[in-house]
């Protein structure tokens, strides 16, 4: 459905707005490219010249230090010039429309916009109205999509669990309001996981969620039984005011991930969280800091994945692929085999 907008005439990824519509092959291409960028962050000189001379604008209509910083680091490691704009506090508050803001910034010859906005569909709107040479990465729009988060989660799963085909995965928490959950679901479906469950009280499950190809569960016992991956979601505290849940205490009792609940999953299950975590609300510290947690590696991988997405949509694919072509053995052959 998003093929037309996300891809150019030659079928190359032009924008990254959502994972919906991306093929398994495209997702794996992004993950493989990210794999080649992991080592960049481990070097003394953490820069490659792929986007030298390009201008990347982090356009955040909604504040998010963590995501913005990872995009900033990713762009800088690719040698781009990076500008951070917290637009919520400037132009829009003066009455300027979203498209006016974009047009003004475009006039400053921006090559890539990384956009975060509180409204679903904002990135699509912008992508429809920028000239062909300008690229858009959706860094989170309303409840709709957070594709780079979804991709970095896939990267993390692949690194720790290998192939997707036999995995049972549970996404736990506020599915209704979560853009992260939607992107995770689309990515996991595209990659062909064996089973995908979403776990939440009915007040936090969207209507017709099963149409997304998931099994809705309202009890942790059912949702976590034998899963290989547990993906926790952040719960906004204001959901209590909206009568979605009665109290933090009750939510934690029912849906908080504790060692006892995690024991329902497979012994070697991994625990993920997009951060920032609410300890004692959605996750127990013993789990968050425990041996099955891969929450911190997720952050590290996030930079490589965002570098990969930027490189791919800016047309940098051949340069990225080059090292792999020269020396495939340097790219963890065992893992490569798993996801062929």
């Amino acid at each position: 459905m998003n093929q037309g907008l996300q891809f150019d005439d030659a079928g190359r990824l032009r924008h990254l707005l959502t994972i919906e519509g991306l093929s398994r092959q495209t997702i794996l291409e992004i993950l493989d490219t990210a794999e080649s960028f992991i080592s960049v962050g481990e070097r003394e000189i953490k820069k490659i010249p792929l986007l030298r001379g390009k201008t990347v604008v982090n356009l955040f209509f909604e504040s998010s230090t963590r995501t913005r910083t990872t995009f900033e680091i990713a762009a800088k490691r690719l040698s781009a010039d990076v500008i951070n704009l917290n637009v919520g506090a400037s132009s829009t508050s003066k009455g300027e429309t979203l498209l006016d803001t974009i047009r003004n910034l475009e006039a400053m010859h921006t090559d890539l916009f990384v956009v975060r906005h509180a409204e679903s569909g904002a990135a699509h709107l912008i992508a429809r109205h920028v000239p062909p040479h300008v690229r858009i990465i959706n860094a989170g729009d309303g409840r709709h999509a957070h594709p780079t988060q979804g991709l970095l989660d896939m990267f993390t799963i692949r690194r720790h669990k290998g192939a997707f085909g036999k995995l049972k995965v549970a996404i736990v928490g506020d599915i209704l309001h979560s853009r992260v959950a939607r992107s995770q679901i689309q990515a996991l479906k595209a990659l062909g996981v064996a089973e995908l469950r979403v776990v939440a009280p009915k007040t936090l499950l969207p209507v017709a969620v099963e149409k997304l190809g998931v099994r809705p569960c309202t009890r942790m016992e059912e949702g976590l039984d034998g899963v290989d991956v547990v993906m926790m979601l952040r719960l906004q505290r204001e959901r209590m005011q909206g009568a979605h849940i009665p109290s933090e205490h009750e939510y934690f009792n029912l849906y908080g991930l504790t060692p006892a609940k995690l024991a329902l999953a497979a012994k070697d299950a991994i625990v993920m969280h997009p951060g920032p975590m609410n300890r004692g609300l959605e996750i127990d510290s013993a789990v968050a800091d425990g041996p099955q947690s891969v929450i911190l590696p997720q952050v590290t991988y996030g930079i490589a994945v965002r570098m990969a997405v930027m490189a791919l949509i800016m047309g940098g694919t051949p340069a990225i692929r080059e090292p792999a072509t020269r020396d495939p053995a340097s790219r963890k052959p065992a893992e490569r085999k798993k996801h062929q």
Partner: protein
Amino acid sequence: MTLVIQGGHLIDPANNVDGKKDLFIDDGGFVAGVGKAPPGFKAKKTIDARGRIVCPGLVDLRARLREPGLEYKATIESEVHAAVAAGITTLCCPPDTLPVIDTPAMAQMLQSRAWRFGLAFIHPLGALTQRLEGKLLADMEALDEAGCVGFTNALSPVTDTLVMRRALEYAATLDLTVFLHAEDPWLRNGGCVHEGEVGTRLGLPGIPEAAETVGVARDLALIEQTGCRAHFCGLSSARAAAMVAQAQKKGLPVSADTTAHHLHLTEHDIGDFNTQCHVRPPLRGKHDREGLRKSLKTGAISAICSDHQPHEPDAKLAPFARSEPGISALETLLPLTLRLVDEKLLTLPEAIALLTHKPAGIIGVETGQLGIGATADICIFDPEIRWTLTGDKLVSRGHNTPFLGQTFRGKVTHTLVGGKLVYEGSKT
């Protein structure tokens, strides 16, 4: 000027006319003869209607002309031209203008401004409560005297059920019709699409179908209690239509309409955040669309309206939830209804009835029919012309429609209001 419309296929469902008949109009603008010229009739003008359908001018129960207050979107002048180009000769305007139509002066001003152009008839709907605030009743008797054909709070909810009860009781006292947009505002909860598959996929806040059915249930209980005559505007769900049908069976004085676009589009047409499909009530699922269509056949829904809402381009250039709801719909009202004939849901006379005498009956005006002595408000269309809707073909100032680029069958060639030819379109 005396006039004969010659050689056309006359369809006048109110009078059970469906056949090739000439229509004779006297110099007062009234129908003087059907099929046969009255004695001594001499036509000064002849309209050749061979191969065309001649029917009463269309009656649209809900069209925003944006004046006063929102002239940057459209004006009475621009929209009455669009109306007659679409064969619509009578328009009802909701009171949610700026200022609100809650005084006789406002109601009269709207009609006198419209009449300056001598095109379509404009009938205002008066506010049910002052400033549409849902607190104090508007002066319904004075508004009725000033020409309002019904009373409504438009899309502003009357959240206080007691105020709603009083409003219905008061309207019943004066034998007035109340037009209801039934929607529970708490269940709507700021939603912008149907709460269903598409809203879930796109992460857009949904309006459950229950918001409409709870609203209809509340209002039906109050209608039963007060005996008020009421009309449900723009039903979007199968269940609400069924509830209205059941109330009609019980003998409650209720009627209902739906919009032409709800009969054709579903939530799936939103695709990737197509803001042209942002409407209120929202486009629902296929089951609801089929339920609405069935209600046309059973008669529970007795009018199709445009719910015309022209917008300036910027109104739709925003993220979906922030874009303004509404479609510029005057010019697709007849073509979309004719599509229901092509799809074998309705016969042509049934379709025309839903656009003419049935809506006219709801607002209690003597139009929508072409019996002898009736005002000669007439729509003539060529049912065989195929045409594609493009922005440059739209007469309305609002180009906000999801139907751009679509091909339709049937095009208005002439529109007469009070016997006067007010629109003559392309003959090919």
